[in-house]
């Protein structure tokens, strides 16, 4: 190389290496950015939601009635509070005092009496749920330094809370309401049991429909279908269905299942059916892929010893492809669990207090509950929304983990 060329080359080299470095940093930066988005999302939801797994409760001395039917339970709560703070006299202050416990307290006392009929007429200590404002102060969602209108507790109320706490009558425990109640207007009483039941029923329907149909279609297309116009049409169809926006499936469900077949609105049955149609393409596509991965020698071996085509598929090919099919099904189910939009279309967006007991009762689902609570005005719903998301994500993670384990354990490399 001549000197003229090498000087030219050298002059550019530094600039080129700088470009290289920047480009590489760009790539690294993009990954860090994406990962930090994920981390921010998970951390912010974790931080915002973990407090909802515990609930503040207050111990009250209650003089239980002898007659459980005609007892004024709300009055009992108020009386107990007045006795605990005898100095409170004005009507306004009394109202503030009553607001420290949840409106569900009366119902809790009633439940206590039902569970302990032998205690009737006695004075006992009953644990009642504190109001959401008290709970938020205790778990740190609001600070005592915040102005009263922000923390929604007056200075007097904060002082009472301190007093109760000092007396040892304020407890922080596992939030059973959150896991075992249905929805409620009161955040401290609201729970995800109804939503979980709705999700469960929908998923069962979805699995029951999509899995057999999907696997049948996959087997037909991969093992039996000849290359006709019809089968290629089906193939194109399935690929496109996989990319149709989920809300369109909701419209389908509304027009066909609800309006045409007049199935019940808001029911997990319809929700599951819509989700099944959505999941079907995923199952068919992954199912075909795992059937394709089984080498032809297996089929030929089965056919060679006199098995029919159907026998060779069901006795030899399908068992080998099953782990892959199951993995695809679980991944499809995981998508269905998190799906919201189509459920809104068929009316599974409702205030459901009672936990549904069948696939025909009105229900909602976990992601829809997230949507509903995210919109609620009370601040205490924010942590419950985040907590519901945590539960949802734990479910999803568990499902994906099962899929990964299944794949690792049964994966056959040909």
């Amino acid at each position, binding site marked *: 190389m001549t000197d003229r060329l090498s000087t030219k080359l050298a002059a550019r080299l530094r600039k080129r290496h700088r470009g290289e470095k920047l480009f590489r940093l760009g790539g690294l930066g993009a990954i860090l950015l994406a990962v930090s988005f994920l981390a921010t999302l998970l951390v912010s939801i974790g931080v915002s939601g973990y407090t909802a797994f515990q609930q503040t409760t207050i111990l009250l001395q209650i003089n239980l009635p002898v007659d459980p039917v005609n007892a004024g339970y709300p009055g009992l709560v108020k009386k107990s509070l007045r006795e605990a703070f005898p100095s409170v006299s004005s009507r306004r202050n009394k109202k503030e005092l009553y607001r420290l416990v949840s409106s569900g307290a009366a119902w809790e006392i009633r439940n206590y009496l039902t569970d302990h009929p032998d205690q009737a007429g006695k004075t006992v200590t009953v644990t009642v749920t504190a109001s959401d404002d008290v709970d938020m102060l205790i778990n740190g969602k609001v600070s005592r330094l915040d102005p009263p209108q922000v923390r929604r507790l007056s200075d007097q109320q904060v002082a009472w809370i301190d007093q109760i706490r000092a007396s040892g009558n304020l407890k922080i425990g596992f939030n059973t309401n959150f896991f075992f109640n249905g929805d409620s207007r009161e955040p401290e009483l609201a729970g995800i049991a109804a939503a979980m039941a709705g999700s469960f029923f929908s998923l069962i329907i979805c699995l029951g429909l999509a899995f057999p149909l999907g696997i049948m279609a996959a087997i037909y297309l991969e093992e039996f279908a000849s290359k006709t116009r019809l089968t290629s049409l089906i193939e194109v169809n399935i690929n496109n269905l996989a990319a149709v926006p989920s809300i369109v499936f909701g*419209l389908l469900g509304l027009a066909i299942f609800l309006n045409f077949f007049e199935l019940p609105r808001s029911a997990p049955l319809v929700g599951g059916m819509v989700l099944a149609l959505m999941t079907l393409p995923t199952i068919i596509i992954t199912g075909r892929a795992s059937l394709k991965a089984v080498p032809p020698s297996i089929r030929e071996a089965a056919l060679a010893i006199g098995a029919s085509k159907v026998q060779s598929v069901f006795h030899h090919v399908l068992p080998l492809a099953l782990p892959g099919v199951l993995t695809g099904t679980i991944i499809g189910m995981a998508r269905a669990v998190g799906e919201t939009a189509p459920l809104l279309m068929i009316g599974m967006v409702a205030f459901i207090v009672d936990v549904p007991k069948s696939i025909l009762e009105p229900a909602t689902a976990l992601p829809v509950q997230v949507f509903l609570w995210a919109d609620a005005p009370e601040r205490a719903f924010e942590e419950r929304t985040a907590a519901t998301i945590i539960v949802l994500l734990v479910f*999803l993670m568990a499902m994906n983990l099962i899929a990964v384990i299944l794949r690792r354990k049964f994966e056959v490399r040909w």
Partner: protein
Amino acid sequence: MVAALFTGSLVAILVTVGIVLSLVFETFRFLQIVPLTEFLFNPQWSPQTAIRTDQVGASGVFGAIPLITGTLLISAIALAVAAPIGLFSAIYLAEYANSKTRAVVKPTLELLAGIPTVVYGFFAVLIIAPLLRDGGAWAGLSVSSESALAAGLVMGIMTIPFVSSTADDALIAVPLSLKEGALALGSTRSEAIRQIIIPAALPGITGGLLLAASRAIGETMIVVMAAGLAANLTLNPLEAVTTVTVQIVTLLTGDQEFDSAKTLAAFALGLLLFIVTLILNVIAQHIVKKYREQYD
């Protein structure tokens, strides 16, 4: 037996037929009330039908233009986030990262696509929107609490893996010999990537971007929660806009009679959405398929 199996795959066809029929049928009914020209060209959307039929504006105005521009604005913001981040991530993973890093980072990025969209919606409301509002206030801008920007940014985060996965596949499919040819001539890695590998992988990358766009256009929950209901005809990302999917949800949730122009409009919007995403998908799949054949 085989016939039974065949019915399984027939369901796939039935679903498509069902979608098309239900959308087309209801849209047809909608167009008997509202003329097609109004739907496609009127720049105003106000489906609020009056209580009394003799009131002014009793029938509502159903011009889809503000919804379409809103959808496109938010999708454009989403792609502006997802395309560079997804593409650069894919480049780093395919060309620079060692196999260990790749094995960890690739599934981590794909987690972003596995998170339910309702979670992104909540994230937008909880974190991004307040952040933008405060940031806007600090910079002297007024940012609507339900801005196109917040929805678009979060949707962009969600779409990153759609871009990065397909781009990664496309980059990996470029024959090693091309990369080595460029390096052997004294290219730096980035020169080889920018001038040889990316042009060779461009069809695959484009396909991925189209899929991401189709995904963004059809996305519902993020925009329902983070974008607005106000049908503003604007391109200002700091203002609230509404989208096709948001309006479908608003028109159909709650109790309504089923034959009003309002509910039927939702199906017309659904048909529009279906057609647009279908076209994008068909083009994307065609490009990706052609590209795969090229290097097989």
